[in-house]
């Protein structure tokens, strides 16, 4: 396989510089901003609020996602992102703890420079932690794309995305090693971090190429998990009073 020269000089497996800050909006119950290179997303969490929407199951907590693009009207793309985020967050939250409540997650795109959906998922996760919503484990999202000659690169910028033949957004559960170095949680004999929560693909790719994307993404998710743990741990829980 040929080495691809990326415009910003990264290696194919290298992610852009990550930055995460919590508790930036004071009226929201939880908020976080996440940036990967120039892509920046702001997420806010309000909830749990009483009552669920009409078609939702009242025996479980409900998650509602609102996606706000940077410019333009809300169209089908935003609705698709909302649905993907909602399904992903539903599988990491413990929905039986507060039945018949709704938690709203609002995602605002500040700047889009590639891998927008993954940035949003990571931001929403950090915001949920900031709000104190009970979750089973965190989720880390990563974007792998496939170039014309079958080469896999991670975390593309917008220019790189346009030249790709296909890409896959993958969300993995956070590795528990980062919290409990002694052991890992086993789900039916396999460590929980070997699973996958969400996978969204665009474009044409063969099954082998998809599996290759999966294993690269999985390897990179460990680095993201470490970053997530470090940035979420730094804030001391001293400011527990928030405007409701």
């Amino acid at each position, binding site marked *: 396989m040929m080495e691809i020269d990326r415009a910003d000089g990264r290696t194919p497996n290298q992610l852009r510089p990550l930055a995460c800050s919590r508790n930036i909006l004071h009226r929201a119950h939880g908020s976080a901003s996440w940036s990967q290179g120039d892509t920046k997303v702001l997420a806010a969490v309000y909830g749990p609020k009483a009552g669920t929407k009409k078609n939702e199951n009242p025996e479980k907590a409900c998650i509602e996602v609102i996606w706000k693009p940077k410019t333009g009207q809300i169209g*089908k793309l935003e*609705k698709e992102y909302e*649905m993907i985020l909602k399904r992903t967050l539903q599988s990491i939250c413990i929905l039986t703890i507060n039945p018949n409540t709704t938690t709203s997650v609002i995602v605002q795109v500040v700047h889009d420079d590639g891998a927008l959906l993954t940035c949003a998922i990571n931001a929403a996760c950090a915001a949920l932690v900031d709000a104190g919503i009970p979750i089973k484990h965190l989720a880390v999202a990563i974007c792998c794309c496939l170039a014309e000659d079958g080469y896999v690169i991670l975390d593309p910028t917008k220019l790189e995305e346009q030249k790709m033949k*296909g890409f896959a957004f993958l969300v993995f559960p956070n590795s528990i090693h980062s919290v409990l170095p002694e052991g890992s949680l086993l789900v039916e004999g396999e460590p929980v971090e070997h699973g996958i929560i969400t996978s969204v693909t*665009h474009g044409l790719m063969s099954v082998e190429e998809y599996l290759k994307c999966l294993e690269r993404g999985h390897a990179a998710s460990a680095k993201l998990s470490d970053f997530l743990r470090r940035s979420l741990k730094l804030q001391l829980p001293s400011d527990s009073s928030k405007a409701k």
Partner: protein
Amino acid sequence: MGLPNVSGDLSAEMEVDAFRRLFPLRFYERHLSESIRPDARPLGRARDTTLALGAVASADGSALAKIGSTTMLAAIKMEVMSPSTDSPDEGCIAIDFHMPPICSPIVRPGRPVEAAPVVSKQLSDTILSSGMINLKELSLVSGKAAWMAYLDIYCLDADGALFDAALLSAVAAFSHLQIPIVFLNDDGKIVVVSEEGEGGKLDKEPVNKEKRKLTLRSLPFSLTCILHKNYILADPTAEEESIMELL
């Protein structure tokens, strides 16, 4: 069919339908442990599928697809338009998916369903990126006129696996599509000829002599599956989709 005793609670005295409504997950799990589903399908089998081409006579291409009870009607209308400047010899396809209130009791008039724009976008992405249609075939006069195909898919009955049925009906409608005959007017405009015998007026040169069909290359095909504990179910019904969450 009689239900065996489930740990001696009130399900022993209940009818099957009541048990199905009140404890849907336990109802399904009893079936899954025997590797069968309530409609007597094995776990990996899809429902019976039927396809009818030409369901809408006034459209240039149409198809009605049924997967079990899920019914989708797809119709294509062609219009002439001027192509964009960065792709002057390519036509255009616009795909839209509608879920009218007829399809399901949870759809109300005036309140758009969450699933409709998502399926619509996924359909567009799949059809355009699969390379099934070569947009250059939709071109008439390079730089001046090209075909715009409006594909509308209406869900008539939503019983699970919406994307599969919609994709099937879209591909079938494209395979049935016949591009109408057009003439090039003296003013340089394209005129679509109608069917009712205009035999005497054929003094202008037709741009395409006969109705032609599009050549379809790789046809996309999809199958929805649900993962529930250790079981993988293929082609879920709406009831299965609402109870089991991992799609």
